[in-house]
């Protein structure tokens, strides 16, 4: 990979802003356009770019499929678990008012937590899908490029 300097430099320039932008979209989801789904996709795209340049093996070293699957499940649990917590606090399923004193803050907290779960699941599922498809093809030798 050493001799593809343009690819390496461009990806190094692009990946950090992508990750930051994903987090921005994630955490502004409750009062501006965006949210967990979009953020998750952008976040996963950064990793996809990394693997396009450095190869699928480099990606699976950073993000092993086993970990991705566990995180995907964890994201769903965060979403569904928020509902269970509000239920235990005496409100309906996903009734965010139970989460805080001030109704607006309670709603905000609920949305932030739930969207975090969504983002986590979307990003990891996207990556799992990508890895599942990309691992099927024959490995390219570096000289075949």
């Amino acid at each position, binding site marked *: 990979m050493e001799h593809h300097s343009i690819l390496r430099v461009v990806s190094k320039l692009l990946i950090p802003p992508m990750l930051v932008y994903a987090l921005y979209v994630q955490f502004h989801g409750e009062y501006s356009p965006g949210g967990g789904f979009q953020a998750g996709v952008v976040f996963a795209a950064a990793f996809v770019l990394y693997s396009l340049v450095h190869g699928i093996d480099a990606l699976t070293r950073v993000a092993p499929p086993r970990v991705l*699957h*566990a995180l*995907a*499940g*964890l994201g*769903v*649990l965060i979403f*569904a*678990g928020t*509902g*269970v917590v509000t*239920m*235990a606090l*005496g*409100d*309906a*399923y*996903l*009734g*965010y*008012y139970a989460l805080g004193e001030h109704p607006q803050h309670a709603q905000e907290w609920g949305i932030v937590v739930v969207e975090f779960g969504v983002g986590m699941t979307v990003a990891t599922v996207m990556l799992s899908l990508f890895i599942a498809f990309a691992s099927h093809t024959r490995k390219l030798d570096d000289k075949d490029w």
Partner: protein
Amino acid sequence: MMSLIEANLPALQVVLPLVAAPLCALLGRGDRSWAFACLVTFVTFAVSVALFAETYAGTIISYRMGGWEIPLGIEYRVDRLNAFVLLIISGSAALVLPYARRIVAAEIPAERQPLFYTAFLLCITGLLGITITGDAFNIFVFLEISSLATYALVASGSWVNKRALTAAYNYLIMGTVGATFFVIGVGMLYMITGTLNLADLAVRIVEHGDSSTLRMGFVFILIGIGLKLAMFPLHLWLPNAYAYAPSAVTAFLAATATKAAVYVMLRFMFTVFGFDYEFQADTLRMVVLPLAVIAMFAASIVAIFQDNLKRMLAYSSIAQIGYILLGLTFLTETGLTASIVHLFNHAVTKAALFMVAGCFVLSAGTCSISKLGGIGRDMPWTTAAFVVGGLSLIGLPLTVGFISKWYLVLAALELGWWPVALMIMASSLLAIIYVWRVIEAAYLQPAPEGVVRKEAPLSMLIPTWIFIGLSIWFGINAMLTSTAAGRAASALIDSSHILWKE
């Protein structure tokens, strides 16, 4: 604690398997994921029983998701009809999962089993969600959850036979078309009324009156759901999906997937569009009635010529769905009762028969009828279960199949449609032929040489025989099921008549 659980029962019905699904994936290999999934289905079934008991007297439970006001937010609404369907779905799940351990161990590699059970739990989540929700768009969402899980479950049969992949792909295409049609139909209703809550839709559609948009919406929903429940010319995905899916999946799907779709159809036709919506009545009698009758005959005849036992039973399912749809088209209380009671009766019978097929697959390694010669001597209990289940499929007295056909024939005669009544009986004769082919092979033909077949393990026999026991118990003592079905039918009719007659 108890009061908290009681207040949130409708949410728990769906949330339990939903939360359990990712946990199950995290549990790792071994029997842990199976044991966990089993436990969850038992608790889910207990929740369904509680809901059924609560609504049996006629109370309607309404639950606001997230605390939103009702026409705006998602409402979970449990009445007699869907409490009955919930009971069928979660009950089948609670019986199929204990059965699943051995046959899944034989059909699916160990490292894939946790994901298999995860998909199973998601499928249960989706089906229960479709049934319990009172929101049209939420139905679509759960329809997709259950369908996606089902595609994965069907495709997991590919460890045994690669054709499961094409079967799943076919199902994926047809199922997606169905779901899209459904959501287009819902979109048209939304265009007219501006609401998605089913009860609210019903009121506003009456206020709005008939229009071509409403008709289009009705047709899209009819075809979309028709694809999902394998209405006769739209059934082509079903035989292969059932034949190549892992045996436990087939047993569960045959008992529940089409039933949930039939429930959606009942709900839309009689709660949303109303019992005396003229265009609907015409469509049902002119289009659906002939199709249902054709399904009863054509699918039964095709079933006679199948060699694969699971495929044969799948075609028989299409015929049985014909009976359920036929009951709808009578547009009378008896007809509806027949349909609803047949939902339960067919679920019990078909689940038992597919479980028998699974036992054959485990012991004999095949469910091709021509290779099952003499299996009645090697596996007496399994084959006996098939005989009783087959009799119920034919509709012999003292089995649940008889109860359904009795109500169907009664409904036909009430309207004076005696040719239809005759056709119901004639198509039952076809069932005798295909059931007899299996019995003949199992008892009268010699066993192939050099084949060792052991009786199925108890963990599989007991759930099979529980289903068979139910099909006899409710065949002799039909009061509980037919009262429940009758009450559900009258509740459907009452709600819609009030609206349109005002």
